[in-house]
């Protein structure tokens, strides 16, 4: 299997530099990651990019992994030189999801922290989704990876993984929450829309249409397809 497509569109199509989603792929290693930086945090675009890059480099999360990621994040800032508001916002931290996939000989191992969604499709129907299975779950406040060490204790002490078996018909879709909630609200019809996407232009058109008819929340929206 390999990465077949990776598409992303920001909250405002004309402002891609503000898009706080991030993707990293390593086809040779069979490692893929998607992260969605929380809008209400200081530098979530930077944090999301660090998380996917770190996962691609070493796809096993533990305390040392997180400490390294946080150190990398902090190295980009000089707190003492910040304005009072930047300092206070920096101290509150940045937050992001991390959806990581590792292909193995017996299937795929998935790490799902936060509300980014992995979907297993066999070409006829959705066989599984993780970590959520129902659209209402997207309305809760998920645990997110933080740049504040102590905020990650609950994540390090819990299991956020699952494993799926794959066969020759399997396609994996990884997506951020706005399109994930949209998909699970009408899964059989909407997975067909995702299967039919061929280009980045198709993806942008689908997102714009769904935003316009009110079925998809306006948020940074990312889709990674592995097949």
């Amino acid at each position: 299997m390999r990465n077949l497509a990776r598409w992303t569109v920001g909250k405002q199509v004309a402002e891609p530099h503000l898009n706080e989603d991030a993707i990293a792929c390593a086809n040779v290693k069979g490692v893929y990651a998607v992260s969605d930086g929380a809008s209400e945090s200081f530098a979530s675009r930077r944090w999301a990019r660090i998380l996917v890059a770190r996962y691609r480099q070493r796809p096993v999360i533990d305390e040392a992994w997180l400490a390294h990621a946080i150190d990398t994040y902090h190295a980009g800032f000089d707190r003492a030189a910040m304005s009072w508001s930047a300092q206070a916002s920096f101290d509150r931290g940045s937050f992001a999801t991390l959806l990581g996939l590792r292909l193995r000989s017996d299937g795929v191992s998935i790490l799902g922290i936060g509300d980014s969604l992995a979907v297993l499709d066999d070409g006829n129907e959705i066989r599984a989704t993780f970590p959520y299975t129902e659209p209402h779950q997207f309305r809760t406040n998920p645990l997110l990876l933080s740049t504040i060490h102590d905020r990650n204790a609950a994540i390090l002490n819990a299991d956020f993984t699952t494993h799926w078996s794959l066969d020759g018909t399997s396609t994996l879709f990884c997506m951020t929450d706005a399109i994930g909630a949209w998909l699970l609200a009408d899964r059989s019809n909407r997975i067909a829309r995702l299967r039919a996407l061929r280009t980045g232009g198709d993806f942008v058109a689908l997102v714009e249409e769904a935003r316009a008819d009110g079925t998809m929340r306006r948020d940074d929206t990312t889709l990674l397809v592995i097949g």
Partner: protein
Amino acid sequence: MYTAEISRTSPSAFLFIIDQSGSMDERMETEQTKAQFVADVLNKTLYQLVIRCTRADGVRNYFDAGVIAYGASVKSGFAGALSGKILHPLSDIEANPLRIEERVKRVPDGAGGLVDQPTKFPVWFDPTSSGGTPMTAAMRTAAEAIVEWCDAHPSSYPPTIIHVTDGASTDGDPSPVADALKQMSTSDGECLLFNLHISTSGGQPAVFPSSDSGLDEYGRLLFSMSSAFPGHLVQVARDKGYDSVGSESRFFGYKAGYEAIVDFFDIGTRASNLR
């Protein structure tokens, strides 16, 4: 209604109307005067609003904010560069506090211990208490600012007005102006007017009541001046322990103590749909 996304091109607004009459010098359970306590809560609320909207690239103007102070006179509660008009973009508020105090807070060091960290805390609003309670004139000043704001932002999430007082109006019945204020609107809904009465004299407090039964005449007046609880804030209030809040509740507090004052500001300034 109340579903418009809040962005830099389509901001919302918060306007605080603060009673600074002479009776605000009475002391609360916290040993602070009512004026001191309200000033502290207002400064913290402005601080939280600013940092919620601050990113690595600067302050994003998701909100305009303003303060009307009334007592010996009715005027902007801001001083200096902010005193010339009522509502300001958050970036201007961030850049123009009265002063910035240096404080030290203890924070986790990431290795199981605590470390002192210098922190800057801005102050925009100092406590004052003198004169009468010209509530009607204050509401009229608010209405003038809000009608202008709604004209300039016709499709934004409508403004939220938070009014804090400890006494009855001394310049006539404020309810006709308050009613007019509540009827001002954008295409996303009518303005939200939240009233908080604070007291040091005891008596049964009423926070977010769904009817005016049991309230005295003044309480009924403020109840009638208050907007219904917007749906998206109901769960926020329940999460803070106000389990009986529902769509019939009014965003109103009567004879509130210090805990309710803090919660009132916190719940009243939550806005979803930031993008």
